[in-house]
């Protein structure tokens, strides 16, 4: 009897809520569920973007909050786009992005192709190869600085052993001609495993029956590679290029730890340059305009890549 009363009471207590939800249309229930995500998106992504665009049109300095903020129109953009130093930073970034992508895709795909063949110790090799990717960029930057030391560095010793050159006769991170390549080598070492894993997923998704059909048609291994393996792994390759391209365009931590943008400003990539403008020179308005330019560039590139990816998937 007591239990029955309790059940009835609790049902009566829930009734107003139940009626309230029943009164909502499906559309409203849907909006209620997605509202938190939309509010978060607006607060975390859209609002800072609009705020940055607004700041880019002013002379605001974050270290002088009491100073009057004046609108300068498009002058910040004009100054950035006529500044030879920033143009140099763009070229350094282009060199870095192009060569890291080229080497990572080439080596990553080759490694994935080899790992995809069944052999003894396959899993162990996969684990060993992906180890660099799991390290922190700060750690990688630090120990590669030691490896690049002209006096005690293993890298110099190894190059000296192969070429016969004196290991202390060159400095990878102290020479203006070698420093851009030093950061390319380290990024390639660290992130090739990532490209390899994506390519491996692509290669493993190709059904064996297609190769068997090709064998029946007497297609050579070379022809199978170009007409089956490459086209079917292409969406994955493009995905890897998209991820690494955007990441390398924004590269900051690894290069700061390794060279700090030097010698001079030869390895000063755009993100390092931007950080200096924003938090060393405190030209917040100017840095905001710089950030907007980089954002539009990355957004445009990402649009092209997504379109290309969809086309390849449709094929």
């Amino acid at each position: 009897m007591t239990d029955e009363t309790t059940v009835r009471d609790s049902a009566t207590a829930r009734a107003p809520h139940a009626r309230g939800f029943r009164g909502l249309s499906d559309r409203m229930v849907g909006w209620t569920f997605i509202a938190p995500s939309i509010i978060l998106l607006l607060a975390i992504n859209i609002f800072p973007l609009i705020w940055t665009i607004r700041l880019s049109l002013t002379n605001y300095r974050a270290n002088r909050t009491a100073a009057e903020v004046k609108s300068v129109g498009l002058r910040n953009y004009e100054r950035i786009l006529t500044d030879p130093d920033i143009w140099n930073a763009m070229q350094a970034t282009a060199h870095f992005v192009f060569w890291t992508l080229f080497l990572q895709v080439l080596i990553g795909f080759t490694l994935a192709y080899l790992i995809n063949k069944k052999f003894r110790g396959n899993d162990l090799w996969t684990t060993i190869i992906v180890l660099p990717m799991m390290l922190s960029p700060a750690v990688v930057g630090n120990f590669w600085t030691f490896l690049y030391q002209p006096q005690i560095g293993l890298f110099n010793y190894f190059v000296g052993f192969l070429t016969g050159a004196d290991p202390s006769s060159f400095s990878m991170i102290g020479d203006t001609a070698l420093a851009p390549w030093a950061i390319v080598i380290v990024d390639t070492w660290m992130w090739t495993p990532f490209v390899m894993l994506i390519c491996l997923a692509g290669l493993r998704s190709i059904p064996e029956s297609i190769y068997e059909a090709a064998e029946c048609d007497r297609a050579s291994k070379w022809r199978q590679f170009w007409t089956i393996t490459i086209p079917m792994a292409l969406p994955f390759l493009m995905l890897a290029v998209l991820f690494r391209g955007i990441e390398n365009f924004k590269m900051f931590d690894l290069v700061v730890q390794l060279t700090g943008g030097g010698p001079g400003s030869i390895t000063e990539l755009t993100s390092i340059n931007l950080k200096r403008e924003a938090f060393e020179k405190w030209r917040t308005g100017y840095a905001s305009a710089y950030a907007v330019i980089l954002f539009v560039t990355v957004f445009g590139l990402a649009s092209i890549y997504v379109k290309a990816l969809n086309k390849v998937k449709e094929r």
Partner: protein
Amino acid sequence: MKTILYDLSRLRRGPWEMVATILIALGVFMLMQPFALWLYTYSFIVTLVGTVMFIVVSHFPE
């Protein structure tokens, strides 16, 4: 060529997306090329036009 121009005039997505893609690629090349400062100066406006065009034309009919 005639078909492309016809589709452009009828506001079809394919050729307009191609124009936007070419503009973005050209803008990025101009931004990062080491040859002429004036190309770098006009790179942003080219990329911006391409990107905005891409967003708009991706809503055009096929």
